[in-house]
């Protein structure tokens, strides 16, 4: 559904992303991994239309993403940032309901809102004030909002069903291990309904237990991409993360265990 063609991104004095190409199909879960500064977040921000490509193209079902109407794009692509700061005392339900803004039915979609809140286990918090929640609870509320945004597949004017993409930017970093896995499990369940997911992850083990494909970046370039089994190759991890050999070996073994368990 989404195709990245020879994408490059530059900042004032350096190359953030260097000639990256890959494709993502509906129902696929792609984990983007790499050391700090490898270009993961810049790549995700471009897919989220926060910045435009300096070179190359992004195609959404064959159409240029840059020329796509923003409102329709929002019905198809939802983004969960690393952290959402909200100091104003909105109720949890109001925050989640904002996911319906692109659809224009914030006040007439209670059923969908409840389903999304129940999936993310925040239904019991719906009357609480958002700033009073813990970091983990806030992130689950945000995920409920983001999932609600693409809860159902939109249709074009001919009634054809359009595909959906979910982008996650290190979204579990504020969560404890139990919630990390629970959240990613729910994302998996949600994505099984023909939603493509691209997640930038810090935690290699989490990626091994969750993704079915990986994209490994180093200094803005694709170092390797393919099946999640790549994460069991110690030599590869050693190169991508500049790890000492014995640590890379340990990570690879651990990832193998996660893969067998998943």
């Amino acid at each position, binding site marked *: 559904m989404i195709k990245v063609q020879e994408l490059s991104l530059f900042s004032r004095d350096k190359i953030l992303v260097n000639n990256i190409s890959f494709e993502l199909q509906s129902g696929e879960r792609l984990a983007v991994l790499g050391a700090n500064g490898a270009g993961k977040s810049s790549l995700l921000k471009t897919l989220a239309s926060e910045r435009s490509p300096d070179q190359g193209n992004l195609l959404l079902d064959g159409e240029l993403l840059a020329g796509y109407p923003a409102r*329709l794009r929002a019905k198809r692509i939802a*983004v969960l940032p690393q952290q959402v700061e909200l100091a*104003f005392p*909105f109720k949890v339900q109001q925050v989640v309901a*904002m996911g319906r803004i692109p659809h224009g039915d*914030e006040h007439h979609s209670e059923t969908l809102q409840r389903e999304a809140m129940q999936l993310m286990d925040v239904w019991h918090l719906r009357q609480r004030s958002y700033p009073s929640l813990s970091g983990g609870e806030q992130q689950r509320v945000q995920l409920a909002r983001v999932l609600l945004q693409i809860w159902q597949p939109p249709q074009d004017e001919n009634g054809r069903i359009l595909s959906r993409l979910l982008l996650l930017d290190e979204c579990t970093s504020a969560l404890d291990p139990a919630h990390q896995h629970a959240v990613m499990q729910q994302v998996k369940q949600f994505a099984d309904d023909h939603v493509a997911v691209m997640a930038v992850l810090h935690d290699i083990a989490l990626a091994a237990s969750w993704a079915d494909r990986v994209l490994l970046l180093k200094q803005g370039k694709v170092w390797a991409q393919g099946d999640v089994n790549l994460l069991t190759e110690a030599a590869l991890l050693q190169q991508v993360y500049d790890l000492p050999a014995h640590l890379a070996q340990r990570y690879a073994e651990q990832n193998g265990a996660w893969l067998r368990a998943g």
Partner: protein
Amino acid sequence: MSSALARLHPALVWRWNRTRTVLALLALLLPVMLVLALASGPVSVPTVQIVQSLLHAISVSEIHGQQDWIVRELRLPRALLAMLVGAGLAVAGAITQGVFRNPLADPGLIGVSSGAALAAVAVIVLQGSLLAGYAELTGVFALPLAAFAGGLIVTWLIYRLGTRQGQTQMAMLLLAGVAINVIAGALTGILTYMADDEQLRSMTFWSMGSLAYGQWSEIAVLALCIALPLLALPRFAALLNALLMGEAVASHLGFAVQRGKRWLIIAAAMMVGAGVAVAGMIGFIGLVVPHLLRLLMGPDHKALLPGCALLGASLLLLADTIARTWLAPADLPVGLVMAVIGGPVFLSLLLQQARRVMA
């Protein structure tokens, strides 16, 4: 009862929640405040006469007797002025706070009002010399237009100074506001030395804010400058809500963020500029009113913006009535009354934020 209605059609159930109750009470409060303002003064006027006079004013009939004249020619223009300025400043405050994502971003505190005042004072003093061409070109709009431009420039400047990557730093915002207030104040002071006696008299009220100079012609211009943005704003309520979660999130939700933000800043500067042009600097309305309403009805801009318009109008009416009658026959500048009310609220808000940062 309500479930029977719901079976007929879900839209028939009028959900009487807290937000709607607050809005309804505010809509009732405003006429009460208006009657109170029209009734009080050196000559007290009975309520019946006020209602009659208002009906006369609406039907534009002849003035009947002294009390009718007092209500319609002395008190009504001033009351309308208070309502318009109050509504405009309160709504402008709510917008600025939404755009800056900070409940402390009051147009007065961050220097927008003093920028507008400086521009207006410059027009008054220099309209015979340096700005003669401008004054001739713009006519009755000379002051509001200049004040609008002054407010807009300061808002833009503050935005550039206080915001890094879409995140507004509270300390930077307030300190930049202090600096801009000082600079604008100094330049205004220099202009007062260039002014003649007559210009000085028309300028003195600028620094403290007063509604004593309300004229029908000014009210018409003011109504235009405040009503236009007010009518356009409901379209921006959802954008303001989304902006509170950050510009990136708002853009993910399908908003054209930069364009929307530009309109919001222009609307706020227009309302502040118009208010400053006719009433001088009246601070804290834009801080106190949105703060109070967020406590009562939550931060949803769909209800907050109309609520701010109603409560801002009521509050400034009340403050002006106090200013007129407290030390009568002296006419206190209403800006001083508002500062006495607003200062403590600002301090408590500041403490609240500081505590949140510490925690």
